[in-house]
Protein backbone atom coordinates (compact mmCIF):
# COMPACT_ATOMS: atom_id res chain seq x y z
CA UNK A 1 0.00 0.00 0.00
CA UNK A 2 2.93 2.27 0.55
CA UNK A 3 3.38 2.81 -3.17
CA UNK A 4 0.15 4.80 -3.22
CA UNK A 5 1.92 8.07 -2.53
CA UNK A 6 5.23 7.57 -4.24
CA UNK A 7 3.93 7.79 -7.76
CA UNK A 8 2.42 11.17 -8.15
CA UNK A 9 1.45 10.90 -11.80
CA UNK A 10 -2.30 10.41 -11.88
CA UNK A 11 -3.04 13.05 -9.30
CA UNK A 12 -1.13 15.77 -11.07
CA UNK A 13 -2.04 14.59 -14.52
CA UNK A 14 -5.77 14.95 -14.60
CA UNK A 15 -6.97 18.48 -14.66
CA UNK A 16 -10.66 18.80 -15.12
CA UNK A 17 -10.77 22.41 -16.14
CA UNK A 18 -14.27 22.36 -17.53
CA UNK A 19 -15.63 20.66 -14.45
CA UNK A 20 -13.87 23.15 -12.23
CA UNK A 21 -15.31 26.07 -14.17
CA UNK A 22 -18.84 24.74 -13.98
CA UNK A 23 -18.53 23.75 -10.33
CA UNK A 24 -17.27 27.19 -9.33
CA UNK A 25 -19.89 28.98 -11.39
CA UNK A 26 -22.62 26.81 -9.86
CA UNK A 27 -21.34 27.33 -6.36
CA UNK A 28 -21.14 31.11 -6.66
CA UNK A 29 -24.55 31.38 -8.28
CA UNK A 30 -26.02 29.16 -5.61
CA UNK A 31 -24.45 31.28 -2.87
CA UNK A 32 -25.84 34.49 -4.33
CA UNK A 33 -29.27 33.06 -4.98
CA UNK A 34 -29.54 31.89 -1.37
CA UNK A 35 -29.03 35.43 -0.21
CA UNK A 36 -31.80 37.04 -2.19
CA UNK A 37 -31.87 40.30 -0.27
CA UNK A 38 -28.34 41.17 -1.34
CA UNK A 39 -29.04 40.06 -4.85
CA UNK A 40 -31.30 42.99 -5.66
CA UNK A 41 -29.20 45.64 -3.92
CA UNK A 42 -27.25 46.72 -7.02
CA UNK A 43 -30.53 46.97 -8.95
CA UNK A 44 -32.14 49.11 -6.28
CA UNK A 45 -29.05 51.29 -6.18
CA UNK A 46 -29.18 51.63 -9.96
CA UNK A 47 -32.81 52.75 -9.81
CA UNK A 48 -32.18 55.18 -6.96
CA UNK A 49 -29.24 56.89 -8.64
CA UNK A 50 -31.33 57.29 -11.77
CA UNK A 51 -34.11 58.86 -9.69
CA UNK A 52 -31.70 61.45 -8.34
CA UNK A 53 -31.16 63.08 -11.71
CA UNK A 54 -34.68 64.30 -12.47
CA UNK A 55 -34.91 65.44 -8.86
CA UNK A 56 -31.52 67.11 -8.81
CA UNK A 57 -31.37 68.56 -12.31
CA UNK A 58 -34.70 68.83 -14.07
CA UNK A 59 -37.69 66.60 -14.85
CA UNK A 60 -38.09 68.17 -18.28
CA UNK A 61 -38.27 65.39 -20.89
CA UNK A 62 -36.15 66.94 -23.62
CA UNK A 63 -33.36 67.67 -21.18
CA UNK A 64 -33.48 64.23 -19.56
CA UNK A 65 -33.46 62.38 -22.86
CA UNK A 66 -30.28 64.23 -23.73
CA UNK A 67 -28.76 63.31 -20.40
CA UNK A 68 -29.99 59.69 -20.43
CA UNK A 69 -27.12 57.84 -22.18
CA UNK A 70 -24.48 59.22 -19.86
CA UNK A 71 -26.60 58.95 -16.72
CA UNK A 72 -27.56 55.35 -17.42
CA UNK A 73 -23.95 54.38 -17.99
CA UNK A 74 -22.64 56.23 -14.94
CA UNK A 75 -25.32 54.65 -12.75
CA UNK A 76 -24.60 51.16 -14.11
CA UNK A 77 -20.91 51.73 -13.51
CA UNK A 78 -21.45 52.83 -9.93
CA UNK A 79 -23.83 49.95 -9.22
CA UNK A 80 -21.25 47.47 -10.48
CA UNK A 81 -18.54 49.14 -8.45
CA UNK A 82 -20.65 48.99 -5.32
CA UNK A 83 -21.13 45.25 -5.61
CA UNK A 84 -17.46 44.53 -6.29
CA UNK A 85 -16.21 44.48 -2.71
CA UNK A 86 -18.24 41.36 -1.89
CA UNK A 87 -16.71 39.32 -4.70
CA UNK A 88 -13.87 37.75 -2.73
CA UNK A 89 -14.54 39.01 0.77
CA UNK A 90 -16.62 36.16 2.17
CA UNK A 91 -14.25 33.63 0.62
CA UNK A 92 -11.39 35.43 2.29
CA UNK A 93 -13.09 35.54 5.66
CA UNK A 94 -14.12 31.89 5.85
CA UNK A 95 -10.88 30.48 4.45
CA UNK A 96 -12.26 29.26 1.11
CA UNK A 97 -9.92 31.62 -0.67
CA UNK A 98 -6.90 29.86 0.84
CA UNK A 99 -8.19 26.53 -0.40
CA UNK A 100 -8.86 28.04 -3.79
CA UNK A 101 -5.29 29.30 -4.04
CA UNK A 102 -3.93 25.93 -2.98
CA UNK A 103 -5.68 24.18 -5.82
CA UNK A 104 -3.35 22.70 -8.42
CA UNK A 105 -5.81 23.74 -11.10
CA UNK A 106 -5.31 26.97 -13.03
CA UNK A 107 -6.40 29.94 -10.97
CA UNK A 108 -7.36 31.67 -14.21
CA UNK A 109 -10.34 29.35 -14.63
CA UNK A 110 -11.64 29.72 -11.10
CA UNK A 111 -11.30 33.49 -11.21
CA UNK A 112 -13.06 33.67 -14.55
CA UNK A 113 -15.92 31.52 -13.26
CA UNK A 114 -16.29 33.70 -10.18
CA UNK A 115 -16.34 36.90 -12.23
CA UNK A 116 -18.84 35.40 -14.64
CA UNK A 117 -21.11 34.40 -11.77
CA UNK A 118 -20.82 37.88 -10.32
CA UNK A 119 -21.51 39.53 -13.65
CA UNK A 120 -24.56 37.45 -14.43
CA UNK A 121 -26.19 38.66 -11.21
CA UNK A 122 -25.09 42.29 -11.43
CA UNK A 123 -24.07 43.40 -14.93
CA UNK A 124 -26.50 41.17 -16.76
CA UNK A 125 -29.31 42.03 -14.38
CA UNK A 126 -28.56 45.74 -14.81
CA UNK A 127 -28.60 45.32 -18.57
CA UNK A 128 -32.00 43.67 -18.43
CA UNK A 129 -33.63 46.35 -16.30
CA UNK A 130 -31.89 49.24 -18.06
CA UNK A 131 -34.54 49.61 -20.82
CA UNK A 132 -37.26 50.04 -18.20
CA UNK A 133 -35.28 52.71 -16.45
CA UNK A 134 -34.33 54.31 -19.77
CA UNK A 135 -38.03 54.89 -20.39
CA UNK A 136 -38.19 56.89 -17.16
CA UNK A 137 -35.43 59.10 -18.54
CA UNK A 138 -37.22 59.51 -21.89
CA UNK A 139 -34.47 57.81 -23.86
CA UNK A 140 -35.78 57.65 -27.45
CA UNK A 141 -36.84 54.18 -28.54
CA UNK A 142 -34.21 53.96 -31.27
CA UNK A 143 -31.55 54.21 -28.56
CA UNK A 144 -32.66 51.02 -26.80
CA UNK A 145 -30.75 48.47 -28.92
CA UNK A 146 -27.59 50.54 -28.53
CA UNK A 147 -28.15 50.73 -24.78
CA UNK A 148 -28.73 47.00 -24.40
CA UNK A 149 -25.84 45.92 -26.58
CA UNK A 150 -23.37 48.40 -25.12
CA UNK A 151 -24.25 47.39 -21.58
CA UNK A 152 -24.05 43.73 -22.53
CA UNK A 153 -20.55 44.19 -23.91
CA UNK A 154 -19.38 46.80 -21.42
CA UNK A 155 -20.49 45.54 -18.02
CA UNK A 156 -18.39 42.32 -18.14
CA UNK A 157 -15.34 44.52 -18.61
CA UNK A 158 -16.41 46.54 -15.58
CA UNK A 159 -16.70 43.34 -13.55
CA UNK A 160 -13.28 42.14 -14.69
CA UNK A 161 -11.51 45.41 -13.86
CA UNK A 162 -13.45 45.75 -10.65
CA UNK A 163 -12.37 42.27 -9.62
CA UNK A 164 -8.74 43.42 -9.80
CA UNK A 165 -9.53 46.11 -7.26
CA UNK A 166 -11.48 43.65 -5.13
CA UNK A 167 -8.59 41.19 -5.18
CA UNK A 168 -6.08 43.87 -4.21
CA UNK A 169 -8.13 45.10 -1.26
CA UNK A 170 -9.60 41.82 -0.01
CA UNK A 171 -7.15 41.61 2.89
CA UNK A 172 -8.04 45.08 4.12
CA UNK A 173 -10.78 45.69 6.60
CA UNK A 174 -12.11 48.75 4.82
CA UNK A 175 -11.78 47.92 1.17
CA UNK A 176 -14.96 49.53 -0.12
CA UNK A 177 -13.93 53.12 -0.75
CA UNK A 178 -10.43 52.16 -1.75
CA UNK A 179 -11.72 49.92 -4.55
CA UNK A 180 -13.49 52.88 -6.15
CA UNK A 181 -10.31 54.88 -6.00
CA UNK A 182 -8.29 52.12 -7.66
CA UNK A 183 -10.81 51.07 -10.25
CA UNK A 184 -12.67 54.19 -11.38
CA UNK A 185 -9.83 55.52 -13.58
CA UNK A 186 -9.75 52.15 -15.34
CA UNK A 187 -13.48 52.40 -16.05
CA UNK A 188 -13.13 55.57 -18.10
CA UNK A 189 -12.67 53.98 -21.55
CA UNK A 190 -15.69 51.71 -21.02
CA UNK A 191 -17.78 54.69 -19.94
CA UNK A 192 -16.68 56.76 -22.93
CA UNK A 193 -17.35 54.10 -25.54
CA UNK A 194 -20.48 52.82 -23.84
CA UNK A 195 -22.29 56.13 -23.53
CA UNK A 196 -21.09 57.17 -26.99
CA UNK A 197 -22.67 54.02 -28.39
CA UNK A 198 -26.01 54.92 -26.84
CA UNK A 199 -25.73 58.47 -28.09
CA UNK A 200 -24.93 57.28 -31.58
CA UNK A 201 -27.91 54.93 -31.52
CA UNK A 202 -30.19 57.76 -30.42
CA UNK A 203 -29.08 60.04 -33.24
CA UNK A 204 -29.35 57.21 -35.75
CA UNK A 205 -25.65 56.86 -36.43
CA UNK A 206 -24.15 53.39 -36.84
CA UNK A 207 -23.13 51.83 -33.53
CA UNK A 208 -21.08 48.92 -34.85
CA UNK A 209 -17.81 50.80 -34.41
CA UNK A 210 -18.53 51.64 -30.78
CA UNK A 211 -19.60 48.11 -30.04
CA UNK A 212 -16.46 46.77 -31.71
CA UNK A 213 -14.37 48.95 -29.41
CA UNK A 214 -16.29 47.73 -26.38
CA UNK A 215 -15.82 44.17 -27.61
CA UNK A 216 -12.10 44.74 -28.02
CA UNK A 217 -11.92 46.06 -24.45
CA UNK A 218 -13.78 42.99 -23.25
CA UNK A 219 -11.48 40.61 -25.12
CA UNK A 220 -8.51 42.44 -23.70
CA UNK A 221 -9.96 42.24 -20.20
CA UNK A 222 -10.80 38.56 -20.54
CA UNK A 223 -7.24 37.73 -21.47
CA UNK A 224 -5.33 39.90 -19.02
CA UNK A 225 -7.56 40.73 -16.06
CA UNK A 226 -7.77 37.17 -14.64
CA UNK A 227 -3.97 37.07 -14.54
CA UNK A 228 -3.88 40.30 -12.55
CA UNK A 229 -6.72 39.11 -10.31
CA UNK A 230 -4.92 35.84 -9.60
CA UNK A 231 -1.64 37.58 -8.80
CA UNK A 232 -3.45 40.09 -6.61
CA UNK A 233 -5.27 37.35 -4.70
CA UNK A 234 -2.03 35.50 -3.99
CA UNK A 235 -0.48 38.74 -2.73
CA UNK A 236 -3.47 39.66 -0.57
CA UNK A 237 -3.68 36.24 1.04
CA UNK A 238 0.06 36.15 1.57
CA UNK A 239 0.08 39.40 3.55
Amino acid at each position, binding site marked *: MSDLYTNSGPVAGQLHIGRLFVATLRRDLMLSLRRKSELVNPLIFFLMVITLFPLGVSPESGFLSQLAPGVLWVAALLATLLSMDALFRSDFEDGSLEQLLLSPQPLYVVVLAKVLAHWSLTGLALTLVAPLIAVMLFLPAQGMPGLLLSLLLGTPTLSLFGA*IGAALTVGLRKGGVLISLLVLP*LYIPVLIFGSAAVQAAVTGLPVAGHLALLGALLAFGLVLAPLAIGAALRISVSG
Partner: protein
Amino acid sequence: MAEKKWLPRWFYQLASPRWCYQICGKLLPWFTVAMLLLLVGGTAWSLAFAPADYQQGNSFRIIYLHVPSAILAQSCYMLMAVAGAIGLIWKMKIADLVAKSCAPIGASMAILALLTGAIWGKPTWGSWWVWDARLTSMLVLFFLYLGVMALNSAIESESTAAQATAVLALVGLVNIPIIKYSVEWWNTLHQPATFKLTEKPAMPAEMWVPLLVMVIAFYCFFAVVLMMRLRNEILRRERRSGWVKELLLSN
Protein backbone atom coordinates in the same frame (compact mmCIF):
# COMPACT_ATOMS: atom_id res chain seq x y z
CA MET B 1 20.07 30.62 -8.47
CA ALA B 2 21.42 29.03 -11.62
CA GLU B 3 18.46 30.15 -13.68
CA LYS B 4 19.23 33.80 -13.17
CA LYS B 5 22.75 33.77 -14.60
CA TRP B 6 21.85 35.59 -17.79
CA LEU B 7 21.42 38.88 -16.02
CA PRO B 8 24.44 41.22 -15.95
CA ARG B 9 26.45 41.64 -12.80
CA TRP B 10 25.48 45.22 -12.06
CA PHE B 11 21.93 43.98 -11.74
CA TYR B 12 22.88 41.98 -8.68
CA GLN B 13 24.99 44.77 -7.31
CA LEU B 14 21.99 47.03 -7.62
CA ALA B 15 20.11 44.47 -5.61
CA SER B 16 22.41 45.12 -2.68
CA PRO B 17 20.81 47.90 -0.62
CA ARG B 18 24.10 48.99 0.84
CA TRP B 19 25.80 49.35 -2.53
CA CYS B 20 22.79 51.18 -3.85
CA TYR B 21 22.72 53.54 -0.89
CA GLN B 22 26.37 54.40 -1.36
CA ILE B 23 26.25 54.85 -5.12
CA CYS B 24 23.24 57.13 -4.75
CA GLY B 25 25.16 59.12 -2.17
CA LYS B 26 28.05 59.53 -4.59
CA LEU B 27 25.90 60.50 -7.54
CA LEU B 28 23.68 62.93 -5.65
CA PRO B 29 26.02 65.98 -5.57
CA TRP B 30 26.69 65.73 -9.32
CA PHE B 31 23.04 65.53 -10.18
CA THR B 32 22.20 68.32 -7.77
CA VAL B 33 24.71 70.65 -9.41
CA ALA B 34 23.50 69.72 -12.88
CA MET B 35 19.90 70.19 -11.82
CA LEU B 36 20.54 73.63 -10.33
CA LEU B 37 22.51 74.86 -13.35
CA LEU B 38 20.00 73.56 -15.86
CA LEU B 39 16.96 74.73 -13.92
CA VAL B 40 18.27 78.24 -13.35
CA GLY B 41 19.63 78.55 -16.88
CA GLY B 42 16.59 77.00 -18.48
CA THR B 43 14.17 79.15 -16.50
CA ALA B 44 16.03 82.34 -17.36
CA TRP B 45 16.19 81.33 -20.99
CA SER B 46 12.53 80.42 -21.21
CA LEU B 47 11.30 83.47 -19.31
CA ALA B 48 13.49 86.18 -20.74
CA PHE B 49 15.23 85.07 -23.92
CA ALA B 50 12.91 82.75 -25.79
CA PRO B 51 10.69 84.66 -28.23
CA ALA B 52 7.00 85.13 -27.54
CA ASP B 53 4.55 83.11 -29.57
CA TYR B 54 2.94 85.04 -32.42
CA GLN B 55 -0.55 83.81 -31.46
CA GLN B 56 -0.45 83.32 -27.71
CA GLY B 57 2.06 86.00 -26.80
CA ASN B 58 3.96 85.60 -23.57
CA SER B 59 1.54 83.14 -21.99
CA PHE B 60 3.26 80.65 -24.25
CA ARG B 61 6.16 80.65 -21.77
CA ILE B 62 4.11 78.38 -19.52
CA ILE B 63 4.94 75.59 -21.96
CA TYR B 64 8.42 75.43 -20.44
CA LEU B 65 6.92 74.17 -17.20
CA HIS B 66 3.84 72.40 -18.48
CA VAL B 67 5.47 70.10 -20.99
CA PRO B 68 8.45 68.96 -18.86
CA SER B 69 6.21 68.23 -15.88
CA ALA B 70 3.73 66.34 -18.07
CA ILE B 71 6.53 64.28 -19.63
CA LEU B 72 7.99 63.59 -16.22
CA ALA B 73 4.63 62.56 -14.76
CA GLN B 74 4.23 60.00 -17.52
CA SER B 75 7.73 58.59 -17.51
CA CYS B 76 7.68 58.45 -13.73
CA TYR B 77 4.61 56.21 -13.90
CA MET B 78 6.37 54.03 -16.41
CA LEU B 79 9.42 53.71 -14.19
CA MET B 80 7.21 52.95 -11.21
CA ALA B 81 5.42 50.16 -13.04
CA VAL B 82 8.61 48.67 -14.48
CA ALA B 83 10.37 48.78 -11.13
CA GLY B 84 7.33 47.20 -9.54
CA ALA B 85 7.38 44.42 -12.12
CA ILE B 86 11.07 43.77 -11.48
CA GLY B 87 10.34 43.63 -7.77
CA LEU B 88 7.49 41.18 -8.37
CA ILE B 89 9.37 38.87 -10.71
CA TRP B 90 12.85 38.81 -9.22
CA LYS B 91 11.83 39.63 -5.64
CA MET B 92 14.28 42.53 -5.69
CA LYS B 93 13.82 44.79 -2.70
CA ILE B 94 15.51 47.81 -4.26
CA ALA B 95 13.05 47.74 -7.16
CA ASP B 96 10.16 47.82 -4.69
CA LEU B 97 11.71 50.79 -2.97
CA VAL B 98 12.28 52.62 -6.26
CA ALA B 99 8.63 52.06 -7.17
CA LYS B 100 7.50 53.37 -3.80
CA SER B 101 9.74 56.44 -4.09
CA CYS B 102 8.42 57.25 -7.56
CA ALA B 103 4.77 57.70 -6.66
CA PRO B 104 4.87 61.01 -4.75
CA ILE B 105 7.21 62.63 -7.29
CA GLY B 106 5.04 61.59 -10.19
CA ALA B 107 1.89 62.74 -8.44
CA SER B 108 3.34 66.18 -7.73
CA MET B 109 4.49 66.48 -11.35
CA ALA B 110 0.99 65.57 -12.50
CA ILE B 111 -0.39 68.31 -10.22
CA LEU B 112 2.07 70.80 -11.67
CA ALA B 113 1.11 69.84 -15.21
CA LEU B 114 -2.58 70.17 -14.35
CA LEU B 115 -2.22 73.52 -12.61
CA THR B 116 -0.02 75.06 -15.29
CA GLY B 117 -2.38 73.70 -17.92
CA ALA B 118 -5.34 75.27 -16.17
CA ILE B 119 -3.57 78.61 -15.76
CA TRP B 120 -2.52 78.52 -19.38
CA GLY B 121 -6.11 77.81 -20.34
CA LYS B 122 -7.33 81.12 -18.93
CA PRO B 123 -5.59 83.45 -21.43
CA THR B 124 -5.95 80.90 -24.25
CA TRP B 125 -9.55 79.75 -23.92
CA GLY B 126 -10.87 82.24 -21.42
CA SER B 127 -11.66 79.76 -18.64
CA TRP B 128 -9.64 78.15 -15.89
CA TRP B 129 -10.53 74.63 -16.88
CA VAL B 130 -11.31 73.13 -20.24
CA TRP B 131 -11.98 69.47 -20.90
CA ASP B 132 -9.09 69.29 -23.28
CA ALA B 133 -7.89 65.78 -24.17
CA ARG B 134 -4.41 66.23 -22.77
CA LEU B 135 -5.55 67.83 -19.54
CA THR B 136 -8.19 65.15 -19.04
CA SER B 137 -5.67 62.36 -19.62
CA MET B 138 -3.33 64.04 -17.16
CA LEU B 139 -6.15 64.21 -14.64
CA VAL B 140 -6.74 60.48 -15.04
CA LEU B 141 -3.02 59.85 -14.63
CA PHE B 142 -3.17 61.85 -11.43
CA PHE B 143 -6.06 59.63 -10.25
CA LEU B 144 -3.96 56.56 -11.04
CA TYR B 145 -1.16 57.94 -8.89
CA LEU B 146 -3.61 58.63 -6.07
CA GLY B 147 -4.87 55.04 -6.27
CA VAL B 148 -1.35 53.64 -6.09
CA MET B 149 -0.48 55.82 -3.11
CA ALA B 150 -3.74 55.04 -1.31
CA LEU B 151 -3.25 51.31 -1.75
CA ASN B 152 0.35 51.50 -0.63
CA SER B 153 -0.54 53.29 2.57
CA ALA B 154 -3.57 51.10 3.29
CA ILE B 155 -1.59 47.84 3.48
CA GLU B 156 0.44 47.48 6.63
CA SER B 157 2.97 44.84 5.67
CA GLU B 158 5.68 46.55 3.65
CA SER B 159 6.38 43.72 1.24
CA THR B 160 2.70 42.98 0.63
CA ALA B 161 2.10 46.67 0.01
CA ALA B 162 4.95 46.77 -2.49
CA GLN B 163 3.66 43.74 -4.38
CA ALA B 164 0.04 44.87 -4.45
CA THR B 165 1.08 48.33 -5.60
CA ALA B 166 3.22 46.83 -8.33
CA VAL B 167 0.27 44.85 -9.68
CA LEU B 168 -1.90 47.95 -9.65
CA ALA B 169 0.78 50.05 -11.33
CA LEU B 170 1.19 47.43 -14.05
CA VAL B 171 -2.54 47.27 -14.66
CA GLY B 172 -2.51 51.06 -14.87
CA LEU B 173 0.43 51.08 -17.26
CA VAL B 174 -1.32 48.67 -19.60
CA ASN B 175 -4.45 50.80 -19.45
CA ILE B 176 -2.84 54.22 -19.93
CA PRO B 177 -2.66 53.97 -23.75
CA ILE B 178 -6.28 52.82 -23.85
CA ILE B 179 -7.38 55.64 -21.59
CA LYS B 180 -5.44 58.19 -23.64
CA TYR B 181 -6.89 56.90 -26.86
CA SER B 182 -10.44 56.87 -25.53
CA VAL B 183 -10.14 60.36 -24.09
CA GLU B 184 -8.77 61.74 -27.34
CA TRP B 185 -11.53 60.01 -29.25
CA TRP B 186 -14.13 61.41 -26.85
CA ASN B 187 -12.63 64.85 -27.21
CA THR B 188 -12.84 64.95 -30.99
CA LEU B 189 -16.40 63.69 -30.68
CA HIS B 190 -17.50 66.61 -28.53
CA GLN B 191 -15.42 69.56 -29.67
CA PRO B 192 -14.12 68.92 -33.14
CA ALA B 193 -10.73 70.41 -34.00
CA THR B 194 -10.38 73.20 -31.49
CA PHE B 195 -7.17 74.95 -30.79
CA LYS B 196 -4.76 72.61 -28.95
CA LEU B 197 -2.42 73.87 -26.29
CA THR B 198 0.88 72.32 -27.18
CA GLU B 199 0.41 71.19 -30.71
CA LYS B 200 2.68 73.24 -32.89
CA PRO B 201 3.45 72.15 -36.41
CA ALA B 202 7.04 73.35 -36.37
CA MET B 203 8.54 75.11 -33.42
CA PRO B 204 11.54 77.29 -34.26
CA ALA B 205 14.83 76.34 -32.64
CA GLU B 206 14.88 79.33 -30.29
CA MET B 207 11.68 77.95 -28.81
CA TRP B 208 12.38 74.24 -28.57
CA VAL B 209 15.99 74.39 -27.43
CA PRO B 210 15.07 75.99 -24.08
CA LEU B 211 12.24 73.48 -23.86
CA LEU B 212 14.75 70.67 -24.27
CA VAL B 213 16.94 72.23 -21.58
CA MET B 214 13.98 72.37 -19.23
CA VAL B 215 13.05 68.76 -19.94
CA ILE B 216 16.60 67.64 -19.12
CA ALA B 217 16.57 69.84 -16.02
CA PHE B 218 13.35 68.18 -14.86
CA TYR B 219 14.83 64.75 -15.41
CA CYS B 220 17.83 65.74 -13.29
CA PHE B 221 15.44 67.03 -10.65
CA PHE B 222 13.61 63.72 -10.80
CA ALA B 223 16.87 61.80 -10.39
CA VAL B 224 17.85 63.90 -7.38
CA VAL B 225 14.54 63.52 -5.57
CA LEU B 226 14.31 59.85 -6.44
CA MET B 227 17.76 59.14 -5.06
CA MET B 228 17.02 61.11 -1.90
CA ARG B 229 13.78 59.25 -1.33
CA LEU B 230 15.37 55.93 -2.21
CA ARG B 231 18.13 56.45 0.33
CA ASN B 232 15.51 57.14 2.99
CA GLU B 233 13.56 54.03 2.09
CA ILE B 234 16.73 51.92 2.16
CA LEU B 235 17.59 53.24 5.60
CA ARG B 236 14.12 52.44 6.86
CA ARG B 237 14.02 48.96 5.36
CA GLU B 238 17.56 48.05 6.44
CA ARG B 239 17.38 49.62 9.87
CA ARG B 240 18.33 46.40 11.62
CA SER B 241 21.31 45.54 9.44
CA GLY B 242 24.86 46.06 10.61
CA TRP B 243 25.90 48.75 8.18
CA VAL B 244 22.95 51.01 9.00
CA LYS B 245 23.68 50.67 12.71
CA GLU B 246 27.29 51.66 12.09
CA LEU B 247 26.17 54.59 10.00
CA LEU B 248 23.77 55.75 12.69
CA LEU B 249 26.29 55.44 15.49
CA SER B 250 28.99 57.27 13.55
CA ASN B 251 26.70 60.30 13.27
